[in-house]
Every structure is written in C-alpha cells, then in structure tokens.
C-alpha cells in the first residue's frame, strides 16, 4: 500500500519543496520494473522518517525538467538533498537499511 507520507514532487514544486531539511527524492516511472521493486522501500522510509526527513517521488515521464537538470538518465535514482543542496546519489536498487543509514548520517551531522 502506497504511503500517504510520501510527497509527490513535480517540475513546478521541486525547488520549493526540497529547499530545507533532509529530502530524499525517488526518480521513477510506471514502466520501470526495478522502480516498482523500490516503491515499497521508499514508502517504508517515508513512514520511518516521518517528521524528521521528507521522502518524495518524482515521475520522470510527467516531469522531464528536473531529471535533465541533475543529469538523471537512469532509474530508479535516489537523490538526497540537504538544505537544498545535492548531497548524495544512489543509482539502482539498494536495501532499505542502507538508505536509512544514509538519511540518518545527514540528519545527525
């Protein structure tokens, strides 16, 4: 079940939404098999970090500008922003524990 804690980012709200705190953005599309595998992990992270970090999804089909700006040419890709600045990039599948550790590291620092 998709978590309502996951925000939906678009080309138009992206800059505003990612400008403060720790923000994890999942770049995905319907037709991408591995993206669908990563979906439940992203949902779980949104619940786990509720109130501490923002977890969001951005559909690359509907929003071509943001992926272009960050040279995203493969999905799934996870970008982590801290206070608006790109801090981490994960390309491809990764376990929930690994991603959680990465978020914790940026929350702690």
């Amino acid at each position, binding site marked *: 079940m998709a978590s309502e804690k996951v925000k939906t980012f678009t080309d138009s709200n992206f800059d505003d939404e990612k400008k403060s705190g720790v923000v994890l953005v999942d770049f995905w599309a319907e037709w991408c098999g591995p993206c669908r595998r990563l979906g439940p992990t992203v949902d779980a992270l949104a619940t786990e970090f509720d109130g501490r970090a923002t977890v969001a999804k951005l559909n690359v089909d509907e929003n071509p500008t943001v992926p272009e700006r960050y040279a995203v040419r*493969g999905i799934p890709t996870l970008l982590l922003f801290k206070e608006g600045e790109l801090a981490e990039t994960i390309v491809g599948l990764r376990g929930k524990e690994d991603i959680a550790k990465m978020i914790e590291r940026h929350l702690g620092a």
Partner: protein
Amino acid sequence: MSASRADRRVVIIGSGPAGLTAALYTARANLAPLLVEGLEAGGQLMLTTMVENWPGFRDGIMGPDLMTEMRAQAERFGTEIMQGNVARVDLRHRPFTIEFAGGEKVTTDALIIATGASAKWLEIGSDRRLSGHGVSTCATCDGYFFRGKPIAVIGGGDSAMEEAIYLTRFASKVSVVHRRDTLRASKIMQDKAMANPKIEFIWDSEVADVKDGPSGEVTGITIRNLKTGHLSEVPLDGVFIAIGHVPNTSLFVGQIELDDTGYIKTYQGSRTSLPGVFAAGDVQDHIYRQAITAAGSGCMAALDAERYLEGLHDAPEVAAAHAT
C-alpha cells in the same frame, strides 16, 4: 518424530523463475517454504519486455507479467514470501542459519539457492561511475532517456541484440560494439538486428573509456580496435552494457563448492557439495540461462529437497503429500 529444531523445513533464496518454481513445488508438498525475494526481486525477467519463448503463450507474454503470475501461483499454495535481502548464511552448522539485512535470523533444514546472476560491468572505472548518467545495464529502464540520441550497445549475444533492437524505438542510432567480427547471438536475433536500419556494427573493438561532460553526463566513448590497437572516439549520449552476467554467490564462498568463475557446482541434479543445500537457475548454469531451464531446475531442486527431508526426518505427513 521430527528431531529438528529448525524454524523451517526449507528456505529458498531468490525470486526468479528458479526460486518461484522451487517454491511452488515445495509449497504443494506441504513444506511451507519461506522464499526470500532479494534486492532484484523477480530476477532478470523483470528487466525484459516481450518473452516469446516461454511455452504456452503463443503471442508471448511480458516478462514482468510472467513473474507476477509465478509469484501469485507460489503464494496461492502457501509460500511465505519475504521482501529484503539475505546478509549472511551459516551452512557450517545444522540446521542452517539465514541472517537478513535487518539482523533477524531464521534456521532451516534445507536450503535452495536461486540467487541468479546480475549484469556484468566493463570494469573500466568510468562505466560504473557514470551509471545512471548515461551508462546502463537495463535498456527497458533507461531507453526512454535517449529519445532522438545516438547510443551504443556493448556485446554480441542475444541479450545485446534484443537491447539494440528495443533501443531503436528511442535512439536515433544504435552502434553495437563487439570484440569479435562475428556475433554470438542466435540466427533469428542476428537477422533482426542486421535488418534494422538504425543499427550499425563496430567489429573487433572494445570500450577503452566512457567520456563525460561538465554536468556529469555521458558524451562519448573511446573505442580500441583489438586487431590494430587503434583508438577512436565515438560521440554519443548513452552506453548500454550487455556483455553477460556474474553469478550471485558471494554469500556462499568457502561454504559450498563453486567453479572457477563463481558458479555453484551441482551434482546429480540440483545437489551442491553440501547435503541439504540445493541450487537452481542461473546461479549454477552458465550454459543454457533460459527462463524455462531455470524453472525446470527449480522444480528439480524442490523434488531433491523433498527427498532429502524425507530421509532426514521420516515424517509421514510429508511422504503422504508427495504421493498426491
């Protein structure tokens, strides 16, 4: 009566055709299998489009749809499917212990390994660094980003031809770079690729380097001709690597026999060097590597595991289920 204090009779690691078929058979034998999906859940078929050589579907079936069906079928007969990855296995003590990425552990009398194989990289440094920025091992995931752009496919086998053909939907031109002057691909795939006006071939060549521009996006590749040693630049936007696979066996190194290239050695069907541990699918097969052979070997592993457990426990309920 059962002397076992194991949590499970059988655990299956991997959720491609081999793992899910092993699950289907062991579930129907009332062994209540636990299947651990792994990170690349569904296996390599999740990265394909139309599968035209799976018997029973005359018009083909989409790879991800086939896996969804297999998963549902395995669950219907009582397979418990667990998401996530295995971090460690201990096969030195019985029952065997499987430890998950989150730290939880489960013990089992029998283990079926169906962890498959993952795409091989060029291992030239720049290919992995530019993964997600123009270098990819998944055409169906990333082809979309190369609409109207020139790209290359590296490799000369069936997968390389399939990717090249698929990518002509998006790309302006697809250059197939192959180390030899003939393809390894089957005749039907060769013919399809050769007939495609968007596909060109660069023979006897390997990729020496992948180049990137100011924002970290791929801008071209450096090609080395293996006969002349000559280096040349090919400007392009994307590189799709299809040079084969490596078996996912790092969990088992030092605990069961592997061959020189890391594949699990099997004997008399699906038996590994360790009684009670069975292997199925691409993790033990570098020759056939088909969905149907993986499924077939998954069935073999399930039947072998059943027999092993019968001998181990003399459990009458298992024998009765097997007879039906």
